[in-house]
């Protein structure tokens, strides 16, 4: 992974000192809450329902075991002993005290971490494929590009007061595990006919109140031009994005109102003027940055192991876990392992300090000392030897991190909802837990196959309900929390916004409603291989509507 230079360290120290000064000025009253808000938000500090919330950046979802131990230490020392992994691969602490935050940042800086630009109207932490560098379907490793974007966007003086927040995601594989189509800018690494690497550039995707799928404004951008092109897009947005209405300020609205064609012309015209500037990326720059992301020294291993195969036959729990939570690795004899953060016992994405420490140890023992965070709020150990899987599984199971449900019905994305969030209009976590409790039968979950349920506690859609196969939106109707269902969304390469199926359900009806939706799927699929989304797209809404409201 990327290793900080002296200057990178210097920057973090200066940033911590700067933020410490801002907090002091606020506590002394020299800085108004309104002005401090802009500063604290640029450092990931929100004021929530009950307390401050600190969001710590995990650049493109990559963590070392030492970084994970520091996250555990922070959870223990400054919070209530746990943290929450977010849909943008970051971690959030729900209970820090304002006066402790500079010390937390000091602790983070020691392990090359920070909270820079994890909120506020600036370029946010760049997200990526959690399987970067190990996936079999990879065109090219996206992490070097992400790191260049991280450096380019960190304290960018021109783009620190944008009309609204700005999110960039990069995918390097055939399958999209980074939801690039619902980001302000989505970059897809591709090769052109000449075998050169470049990007398909999507702009104007996003969720929130006005969900939109990103538009491809360039079908092939040579990789050398990545940063000049990003700068051109951001400059057009900074100058022309709406600032009169908070809800129309994202770049998706600018693209929509300007028109895709005209917007493309504006970006291309700006880019023409800067494409040979200092941001042009040279071969030697790529060589330097790629040096940080070289393949580890993999052992030459057979892609089989006797113990592993015996356990598959003799232990049903292991076989289920292996079937659901393990993915093939590009290297023979290795596997990618998903750690499920979706159990009946913790809110989706939550991890205790003790679990974090244990995960760090497991990463050291079995997976080259690295952990990845995923868009769907799980964790990944990316480089586990096939022969180590039985031992790893036992340890994960003891930590309650081995629920066999990856990409299945109980692998739910949920926002914190009304239990924590000042914006929420309904609770999300209890709904996700009720669904998890209902669908606790492995065979049924297995039969349902690949299906996504996402829950948001308000129309800001942090739980990504629009792009779930089954989306749940909690709203407050005359003092009662009710839940609206959307069907047919996807955040993958076939990205789509789900459609509302009908009137909302009460909290005590929503799990039954989900059950009905799933039954309609099971009754109508052509064969067990046909996924929920494929069936839904084939048969359409009427059958589902009839069952729910008929």
């Amino acid at each position, binding site marked *: 992974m990327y290793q900080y230079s002296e200057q990178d360290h210097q920057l973090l120290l200066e*940033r911590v000192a700067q933020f410490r000064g801002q907090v002091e000025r606020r506590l002394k009253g020299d800085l108004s809450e309104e002005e401090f808000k802009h500063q604290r938000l640029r450092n990931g500090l929100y004021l929530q329902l009950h307390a401050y919330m600190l969001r710590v950046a995990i650049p493109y979802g990559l963590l070392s075991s030492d970084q994970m131990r520091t996250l555990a230490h922070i959870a223990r020392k400054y919070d209530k002993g746990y943290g929450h992994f977010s849909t943008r691969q970051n971690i959030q602490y729900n209970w820090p005290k304002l006066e402790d935050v500079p010390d937390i940042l000091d602790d983070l800086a020691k392990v090359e971490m920070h909270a820079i630009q994890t909120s506020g109207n600036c370029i946010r932490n760049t997200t990526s494929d959690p399987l970067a560098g190990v996936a079999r379907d990879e065109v090219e490793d996206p992490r070097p590009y992400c790191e260049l974007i991280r450096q380019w*966007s960190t304290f960018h*003086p021109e783009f*620190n007061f944008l009309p609204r927040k700005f999110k960039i995601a990069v995918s390097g594989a055939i399958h999209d595990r980074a939801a690039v189509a619902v980001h302000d800018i989505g970059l897809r690494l591709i090769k052109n006919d000449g075998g050169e690497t470049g990007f398909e550039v999507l702009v104007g995707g996003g969720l929130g109140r006005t969900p939109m799928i990103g538009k491809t404004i360039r079908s092939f951008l040579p990789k050398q031009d990545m940063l000049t092109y990003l700068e051109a897009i951001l*400059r057009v947005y900074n100058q022309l994005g709406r600032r009169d209405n908070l809800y129309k300020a994202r770049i998706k609205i600018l693209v929509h109102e300007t028109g895709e064609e005209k917007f493309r012309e504006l970006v291309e015209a700006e880019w023409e003027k800067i494409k040979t500037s*200092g941001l042009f990326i040279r071969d030697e720059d790529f060589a330097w940055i790629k040096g940080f992301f070289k393949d580890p020294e993999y052992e030459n291993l057979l892609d089989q192991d006797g113990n592993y195969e015996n356990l598959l036959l003799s232990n049903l729990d292991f076989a289920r876990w292996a079937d659901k939570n393990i993915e093939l690795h590009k290297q023979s004899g290795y596997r990618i392992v998903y750690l499920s953060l979706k159990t009946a016992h913790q809110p989706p994405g939550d991890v205790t300090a003790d679990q974090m420490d244990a995960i760090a140890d497991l990463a050291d023992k079995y997976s080259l000392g690295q952990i990845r965070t995923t868009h769907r709020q799980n964790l990944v150990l990316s480089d586990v030897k096939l022969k180590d899987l039985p031992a790893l599984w036992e340890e994960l199971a003891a930590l309650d991190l081995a629920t066999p449900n990856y990409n299945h019905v109980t692998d739910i994305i949920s926002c914190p909802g009304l239990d924590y969030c000042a914006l929420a209009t309904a609770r999300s976590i209890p709904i996700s837990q009720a669904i998890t409790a209902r669908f606790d039968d492995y065979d049924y979950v297995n039969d349902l196959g690949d299906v996504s349920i996402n829950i948001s506690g308000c129309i800001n859609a942090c739980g990504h309900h629009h792009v779930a196969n089954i989306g749940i939106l909690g709203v407050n109707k005359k003092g009662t929390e009710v839940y609206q269902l959307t069907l047919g969304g996807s955040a993958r390469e076939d990205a789509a916004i789900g459609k509302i199926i009908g009137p909302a359900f009460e909290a005590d009806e929503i799990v039954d409603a989900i059950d009905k939706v799933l039954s309609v799927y099971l009754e109508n699929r052509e064969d067990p291989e046909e996924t929920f989304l494929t069936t839904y797209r084939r048969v359409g809404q009427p059958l589902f509507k009839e069952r729910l409201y008929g």
Partner: protein
Amino acid sequence: MDSYIKDRKAEGDEWMPFTGLEESSSLPTGDIYVPLEEWLKSRESLLERNGRLGVALSNTDDPALIKDDLDRLDLVVLEFPKMADGRAFSQARLLRERYGFKGEIRATGDVLYDQLFYMQRCGINGFELRNDQDVSNSLKAFDEMTVTYQPASDEEFPIWRRED
């Protein structure tokens, strides 16, 4: 009380804003700056004066409108109507980097301590601080950060392309 910084020093301000050229009987003396509209309308008579000239852009004006006039101007005034409105950061970079303006680029409006560093990097070198800001204290803001990653008006190259 001075609330003005030029080139990282507290300074007295010699410039006067001026509007209403058509209604006035005589041309104003001294160093003046006029809104873009007046400049476009009365460019020639303004240039006949002795004394330096500046133009004030609103933050929705395209700086390209004055790019051919820049060698006759000593000041361009930009506005930050509120802290969160960062359009003028782009205007400043375009004036400095694309159109090669050598005179003063001045920030007005919500010019606050925590933006000075970013403004400076975008080529702004005159700062009309908001009234409640302490000038001598504000001078410290320029040095809070010494490491910069990306090119801007003060650096041609990103950090990975700079020779140490």
